[in-house]
């Protein structure tokens, strides 16, 4: 069979690092081809080379058997290569249509023919069942929708080969299901897809073949039908990886966190949390399951003091912490691993070391009488870096230069190390490879076993099921039911998340 894409012996260097070395990737027409590797293995780099954003130092690229030189994305577009980037390439303030036609706008008398563009977008969207609103502004639509816009962008440019870089990391299970449907319909139309994902289950479900890279080097390509997740994982990491996190049954003690009748509004002033009640006890992990947009983020921000509660009360032990400042909340024993690590978690332009004391810099031994003690700070930072296996050249490196996974490990190290009573972990493993996920899960369970209360927010049902001792299903701003993971399955959970009150769980 003829390959639509052949990348042969690709080498790409960055100052001081070889991101890709001698990598081969061959994609057949009409297949979904997985690209698998740890965080920082070089997957995005390889795809950026294919898309013309980077020029490789060595190697050649063939499209439909012909040798090509892809000097910039324009060339890639012309060759029928489209890419949906890991971090979306969408202009927030533009409409869906504007984003899609940007760069190849239909014109009428010197102006952008928006009418025509919208019509085309609508047609395209209907043809592949993408269902987007051409006139909506990007910042007003969900992440899942945004991703469809990205896909439409490539289709609008007539892409035959689609690169999807970690498309599912940011999606809810429902959205993932829909995306998979879309991928199938694309392949049916004769298109080929390169899919990057850390979720082995997805690879098993949708891909035909899988190319594995490790630390910048190509390990090889396997037929998905001939392999299993365990094999894939060990190929990628280079060692055995355990999937189901081992943990002993929980041993919940006194109530640490109790929330009563909480109401919280979002930025636009719409009620998002509507009379929520929840308790988390010492020594247990409570997972909040729910479809994105049901008030989870607002709930967590309210607990952390980042958002005002309208009414109700949040108590930690016996202390009411409703509407306390973030500093006060932290001091009363709450840690928070934020959902958006770049926006909230880190000062990217600070060294890793200083990020490690972002909340505790004013306390001894990091400072005394208002004067910082950098020796102690960096000593502490180094300890955390070692303990949490944060891969960074050193503690003085700017946080910006770390990969997402390592940034996340740094945050987790910092938050856990403060020995809080309550850890709020919001999507702690988003976008991370299986090795890193394993590590973080282990850490959270360790903390639980030390008698801490953990509140976990995740859109990954698998993570919720694996990690939680108790699952609280959140729908429309309320906890509509609580179940134990052993008493339910993903199917039932999915139903509950859609707002159906469970028959089985309620009846027991």
């Amino acid at each position: 069979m003829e390959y639509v894409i052949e990348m042969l012996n690709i080498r790409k260097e960055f100052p001081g690092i070889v991101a890709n070395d001698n990598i081969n990737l061959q994609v057949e027409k009409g297949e979904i081809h997985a690209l698998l590797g740890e965080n920082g293995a070089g997957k995005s780099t390889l795809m950026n080379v294919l898309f013309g954003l980077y020029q490789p130092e060595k190697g050649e690229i063939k499209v439909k058997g012909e040798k090509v030189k892809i000097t910039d994305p324009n060339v890639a577009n012309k060759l029928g290569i489209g890419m949906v980037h890991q971090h979306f390439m969408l202009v927030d303030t533009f409409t869906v249509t504007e984003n899609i036609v940007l760069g190849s706008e239909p014109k009428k008398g010197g102006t952008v023919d928006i009418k025509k563009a919208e019509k085309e977008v609508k047609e395209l969207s209907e043809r592949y069942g993408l269902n987007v609103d051409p006139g909506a502004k990007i910042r007003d639509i969900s992440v899942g929708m945004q991703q469809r816009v990205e896909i439409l962008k490539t289709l609008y440019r007539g892409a035959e080969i689609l690169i999807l870089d970690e498309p599912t990391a940011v999606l809810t299970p429902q959205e993932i299901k829909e995306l998979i449907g879309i991928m199938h319909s694309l392949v049916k139309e004769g298109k080929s897809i390169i899919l990057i994902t850390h979720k082995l289950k997805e690879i098993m479900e949708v891909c035909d073949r899988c190319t594995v890279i490790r630390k910048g080097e190509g390990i090889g390509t396997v037929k998905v039908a001939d392999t299993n997740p365990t094999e894939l994982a060990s190929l990628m990491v280079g060692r055995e990886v355990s999937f189901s996190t081992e943990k002993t049954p929980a041993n919940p003690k006194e109530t640490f966190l109790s929330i009563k009748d909480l109401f919280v509004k979002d930025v636009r002033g719409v009620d998002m949390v509507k009379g929520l009640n929840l308790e988390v006890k010492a020594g247990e992990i409570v997972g909040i399951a729910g479809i994105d947009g049901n008030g989870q983020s607002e709930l967590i921000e309210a607990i952390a003091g980042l958002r005002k509660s309208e009414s109700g009360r949040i108590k930690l032990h016996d202390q009411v912490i409703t509407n306390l400042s973030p500093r006060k909340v932290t001091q009363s024993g709450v840690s928070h691993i934020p959902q958006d690590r770049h926006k909230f978690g880190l000062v990217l332009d600070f060294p890793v070391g200083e990020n490690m004391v972002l909340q505790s810099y004013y306390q001894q031994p990091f400072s005394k009488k208002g004067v910082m003690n950098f020796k102690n700070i960096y000593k502490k930072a180094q300890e955390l870096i070692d303990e949490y296996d944060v891969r960074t050249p050193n503690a003085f490196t700017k946080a910006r230069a770390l990969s997402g996974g390592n940034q996340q490990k740094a945050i987790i190290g910092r938050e856990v190390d403060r020995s809080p009573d309550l850890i709020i972990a919001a999507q702690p493993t988003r976008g991370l490879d299986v090795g890193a996920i394993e590590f973080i899960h282990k850490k959270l369970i360790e903390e639980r076993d030390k008698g801490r209360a953990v509140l976990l927010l995740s859109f990954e049902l698998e993570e919720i099921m694996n990690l939680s001792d108790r699952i609280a299903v959140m729908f429309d701003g309320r906890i509509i039911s609580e179940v134990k993971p052993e008493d339910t399955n993903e199917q039932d959970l999915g139903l509950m998340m859609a707002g159906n009150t469970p028959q089985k769980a309620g009846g027991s």
Partner: protein
Amino acid sequence: MEFIDILARIIPPAIFFASPLIFTALGGVFSERSGIINIGLEGLMVMGAFVGIVFNLTFHEVFGDATPWVSIFVAMVVSAIFALVHAVASITFRADQVVSGVAINFLALGVGLFLTKQWYDKGQTDMVDRPFYTIDIPVLNKIPILGDLFFSGWYLTSYLAIILAFAAWFIIYKTPFGLRLRSVGEHPMAADTNGINVYAMRYVAVMISGALGGLGGSVYALTIALNFSHATIVGQGFMSLAAVIFGKWHPLGALGAAIFFGLAQSLSIVGSSLPLLEDVPQIFLLIAPYVLTILALAGFIGRAEAPKSLGEAYVKGNR
């Protein structure tokens, strides 16, 4: 009718005061929409004023009545080229855009005055013989009330400024060029992956801002100052920058802001002889335009959102 009289005394002066600011602020809008901060507007105006005056003085016999128009055109071209310094430094060499803009301000004044000394052997040029003059628009100026306010005693360049503001709005919001320009300022990498040449767009935008800044400076020189010296452009560029931000990076917003400045300034001068304001101590009238601006911003204009990647150099392949 007295109110109309007062308006007639305030509005036309406000407009000639505002026109140079409008041009320059529009230039600022283009540059900043593409993601390049332009604190060098002051310098671009200086360059425009210098070129406009020197050209006018040198070629007024060649071009006759067309001299002022040719002068502002030449000022536009030269200032656009001059703006390349800012473009090269901040786009290609990834210089901090504020730094590079500040350098532009120094450079323009230095070059302008240095050459004035070389060419005229003194610190200032003579007055031009062929400046712009106001005109009455035939027929329209006969319209009651409106005719007096809007169609008599205006410079043609003032109409040009207002027309250009609408043109800029059209270009930025209706044309492919505008869409691309804005995308480059909001999310350059997105633009790049869509096949838009980010560097080229930014170069073009900065040069447009040079041209418009030069236009603003030369119109100022040829309607108000009539010669060039160190005292010709003093702060008008910064006021234009303020108009850009005040107008929320929108061409019509910038137009409104510049006119607001003009009205406030005009009012502060006319005020001393208005029945209501005549007892107000002069100092309050003097600072009124600036205080009003701050109040307007604090009171009801509020938070303005700058283009997202404003001030960030675009490095291909970097995140």
